[in-house]
């Protein structure tokens, strides 16, 4: 009864506080999403809308010549997600644990680990592009100076290498984020659990496996979902380093990059194809939306309350 009264009292306030956010969501998310969907159902010439064509643009994506580009871009996004997720999560966890165990200098190391995250991704991309330049970059100079042929590679010029080089750059820049999220999770664990385990003779590894890791589930959910969304919307890094054509040879093309290339065209490689790019946008929106929702639902079910 009391709850009902409180709810009745709170309702206008809840509505008042939620309404602005809802209006912004409608304007900036729902309207563009439905506009995108409507665009994908029409034929276009440049920015001029033509006839209603139903799902023809989606069909075009599954046929030559766009099947290869779209399939390749999707595969690249999957590789980016899987690699980022595995490496970023494990390295982030190790860094967090190392900082968690520190007795002195925690703040300093937190700042150092988090520093690349606050740098603009575009600046990071340019910086690494210069580092890895085979003619003027310090890495190739170093490799030549100390005769290290394994280091003197076309890191951004070999199809098999380029995507993983980009993933490495992405990791370098972003690994501080999961580390800080995990560290926050570790700091929120009740010390008594760990002390009790230690008194019972549990090893450090056992404490990590049986207490810390399970209680990090909420942090893990956040990192996993954000990595999933970020990996499937990967744009800035491949755009700055590989250009709109995803050099070398299209091997760094992602779905967002393909969307951009076809949505706006480029001066020397692509023309505007609003219908096709909107179809990519719709697929990306649905895939990321459903994937994030399912992932979130599944991961939250596994979370343990302290």
């Amino acid at each position, binding site marked *: 009864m009391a709850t009902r009264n409180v709810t009745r009292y709170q309702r206008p306030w809840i509505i008042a506080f939620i309404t602005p956010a809802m209006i912004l969501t409608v304007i900036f998310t729902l309207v563009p999403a439905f506009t995108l969907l409507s665009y994908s159902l029409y034929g276009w010439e440049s920015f001029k809308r033509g006839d209603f064509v139903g799902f023809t643009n989606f069909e075009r994506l599954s046929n030559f010549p766009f099947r290869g580009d779209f399939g390749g871009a999707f595969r690249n996004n999957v590789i980016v997600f899987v690699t980022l997720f595995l490496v970023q999560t494990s390295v982030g966890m190790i860094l967090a644990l190392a900082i968690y165990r520190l007795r002195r200098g925690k703040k300093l190391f937190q700042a150092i680990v988090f520093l690349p995250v606050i740098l603009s991704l575009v600046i990071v991309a340019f910086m690494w592009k210069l580092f890895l330049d085979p003619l003027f970059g310090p890495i190739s100079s170093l490799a030549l100076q100390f005769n290290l042929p394994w280091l003197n590679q076309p890191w951004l010029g070999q199809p098999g290498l380029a995507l993983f080089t980009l993933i490495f750059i992405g990791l370098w820049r972003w690994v501080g984020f999961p580390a800080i999220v995990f560290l926050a999770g570790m700091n929120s664990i009740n010390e008594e659990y760990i002390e009790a385990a230690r008194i019972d003779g549990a090893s450090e590894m056992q404490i990590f496996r049986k207490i810390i890791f399970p209680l990090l589930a909420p942090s893990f959910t956040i990192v996993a979902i954000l990595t999933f969304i970020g990996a499937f919307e990967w744009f800035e890094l491949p755009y700055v380093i590989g250009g709109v054509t995803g050099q070398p040879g299209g091997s760094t093309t992602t779905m967002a990059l393909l969307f951009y290339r076809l949505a706006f065209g480029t001066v*020397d490689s692509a023309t505007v194809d609003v219908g096709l790019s909107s179809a990519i946008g719709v697929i990306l929106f649905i895939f990321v939306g459903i994937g994030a929702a399912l992932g979130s639902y599944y991961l939250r079910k596994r979370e343990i309350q302290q």
Partner: protein
Amino acid sequence: MKTRNRLRHLVASLTVSAVALSGSVLMAPMSKAANVELTMYSWRVEDKAFYESVIKDFSAANPGIKITFQSFPSADYQTILMSAMAAGKGPDIVHVRAYGALDQLVVPGYLSPLAANEVKGLNKYPVDALNSQRGFSDKRLFGVPFAYQSLGIFYNLEYMRKAGIQLPPNTYPEFIEQLKKIKAAGLQGLANGGSTHIEQMWGTIAPMFYGGTEFYNDVVAGKKTFTDPAFIKSLEAVQELFPYMPSNATAVSYDASRALFFSGKAAFFMGGIFELGYFRNQNPKLKFDFMATPPMSKGGKQFVSTWADGGFGINAKTKARPEALKFLNYLASKSFGAPFVQTVAQITAVPGVPIRDRQLQKAVSSINKWGTPYIMLVGFRYKNPTGSALLQTGIPNMLNGTKTAKQVADEVNKGVGTWFGPFAGKI
């Protein structure tokens, strides 16, 4: 008394009204002229100072018209321009690209068509230049051509002398021999990388292998396709140059390639004559020259990939079309053409402008003698996938060894064949 006062009042009122009326009549055109403010968009960031000086000269002669020049990075220009036009907030005067990129603005009706008599001297422009400013389907004129470009070879004779080479090559086989000699001397032959702009390097040598304008005409007419052995040979020729490119060439960016050449660390750079001013500005001490791609044998046929680079158009939604047109007339006159050549070191499209720069003269002469359409830009950048996009991804894959020249040619053919009418039933 009362009547006299009334009369005096009436006369005074009429006088004031007459003065006000005459004043407003006289002032109207002046104030209107003084209020005309135009904007111009361009991708020529590096020429901003030049265009601002041109505008200053124009405004001095046309005091009522003020123009604000805004430039954007070349790679992002088309996106920025298209978005602005779509939002109805584009500039009054538009520096437009040519061919396919122009067509993207023509189709949605963003540009105002130009009648031949609206711009003085337009009838003296060559037909090819004017055609570059027409749409793919809409054949009206949408811009005043501004420059010609051609591809060729920049060379640094001082650097070549270190390998015992005294003169630039006379034939293409001699060019390859010189590259071998430079490499054997432990020096860098080609500055070009195999990443972005690889299509440009291909375009520098390709017409020599596929047969220039005759092949272009045959392909455009659908008599030949890109699986023609001559076209495949043109791709293989790029592969043949790969050993003379910098180490890890597929990762060398266009900027790094240019830097390698203008810093005097390579013998040759294959690229557009539009780099002339850039190289001079970056390293005024560098002694270099420009040549057309040499023929396969002495006195043999030569071809130089050529295109009209873009133009100046008018936004269809501008509220000041007469004033914009006035500026376009200025840009089509020698008042613009002469300083354009002098300051920017490029080949103006304005007819009758004398070119005194020796290297530009060489480029103009090679265009006149051996010019052939830069095939993918002039003919195959109208729909997706463009011929250029297919080459820009195909050639690096060929250099990396993941595809053969024939596979790249097949992909270009199949890709372009999805939208290029004359290829119907031939792929």
